């Protein structure tokens, strides 16, 4: 996402806007690409024409590219917190629970059970 703000810009110059699309009300805005446009309003319009000629969506965010602060791909140390075994933090680290419940003749409760309960 290198930004070239050189002084020998061609005229007219359009700024780059990164585009985020929300497809349904309980979904998140997801990055889908970028456009160049003369204003935020026009960027929304261009984004609609570029990315939503077929797919439905309910909201578009356009963000001036220079307003995005990205991490560096080279700086892998930034994600070092994933380096050690984290199974103690995941459901997959507790597969023994099901076996033990079986020994007690009960089935382990899963998050899906409780969400299902809530929808009953």
């Amino acid at each position, binding site marked *: 996402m290198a930004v070239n703000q050189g002084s020998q810009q061609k005229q007219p110059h359009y700024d780059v806007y990164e585009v985020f699309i929300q497809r349904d009300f*309980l*979904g998140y805005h997801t990055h889908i690409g970028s456009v160049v446009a003369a204003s935020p309003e026009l960027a929304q319009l261009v984004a609609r024409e570029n990315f939503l000629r077929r797919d439905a969506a309910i909201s578009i965010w356009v963000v001036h590219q220079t307003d995005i602060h990205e991490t560096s791909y080279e700086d892998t140390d930034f994600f070092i917190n994933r380096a050690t075994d984290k199974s103690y933090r995941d459901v997959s680290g*507790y597969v023994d629970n099901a076996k033990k*419940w079986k*020994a*007690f003749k*009960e089935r382990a409760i899963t*998050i899906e059970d409780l969400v299902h*309960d809530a929808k*009953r």
Partner: protein
Amino acid sequence: MSQDLRENAFMERIERGEKIESTDWMPEEYRKLLIKQIHMHGISEVMGAYPEKEWVPKAPNLRRKLALIAKVQDEIGHGQLLLRVAEDLARPYGKVRDDMIEDVYTGRVKFHNVFHMDAPTWADAGVIGFLVDGGAIITQASLLESSYAPYARILTRICAEESFHMQHGESIVLALADGTEQQREMLQQAIHHWWPSMMFFFGPPEMSGASLRMMDYKIRTRTNEQLRQRFIGRYAPRIHALGLTLPDSNVYYDVEKDLWTYSEPDWEMFSHMVRENSGPQSQQRLQLRRQAHEGQQWVREAMIRANNLQQPAIS
């Protein structure tokens, strides 16, 4: 559009099952109910880290210690996500993060009864994950359909992380249930200790005016009693399967009524505890919260100064 017409149009949106965004027009009552609910929810996540944090230094092995630290981190993280949702709503009232945090030790926001309780043994640390997180997930899962979209969206993430909490709690409970007589006795006592608090947790069967308004606005869609019934239905059979008892001999499934019966908790005692912060650990934990917030104020200020120094001077 007149105020009445606007409110009617809003209610029609709610009744059609539409979702509301923070930038949409909303009646002040809807906004205030949401702030109250989400602020309380966020602060309860933060205060919910304290009973378990107390067991981090005393966890029986490294894996349990790591898991408990992970859980404490998650709870604080959930508090931050929820407070962010509440802050957007509270913007018209000029309320910011600091106000939302301070409100807990000045008594302007309450937190869940369960986090006022003490956790005297390692079994309590396990039963918190088992029963308290189980109850919290039942409540939160029912809010996934909330009419306020930013709340529902963030709860999807929170529920996904809570599923580890549930497994972590069950793992401790199962290890103790499968252990020595002494361990089973410790677990039994912890279940007796937490059960009445859990019956109170879901609120009275006869819901308050504010709770009923939240149902009208579909901020929540389940009654207190529906949630409590689901909790008992999930957990009472499991506790019995472990060969353990509940402190309430009235807990049984009434086939004819298709309902679980139970003894009412001491509503007045628990309400007083939440209202006055007068539980066994309320004051001690609030004191720690205040120390953490006030003691670190200089760090928050220093970060702003450091950022200002990094900004190139505007010519």
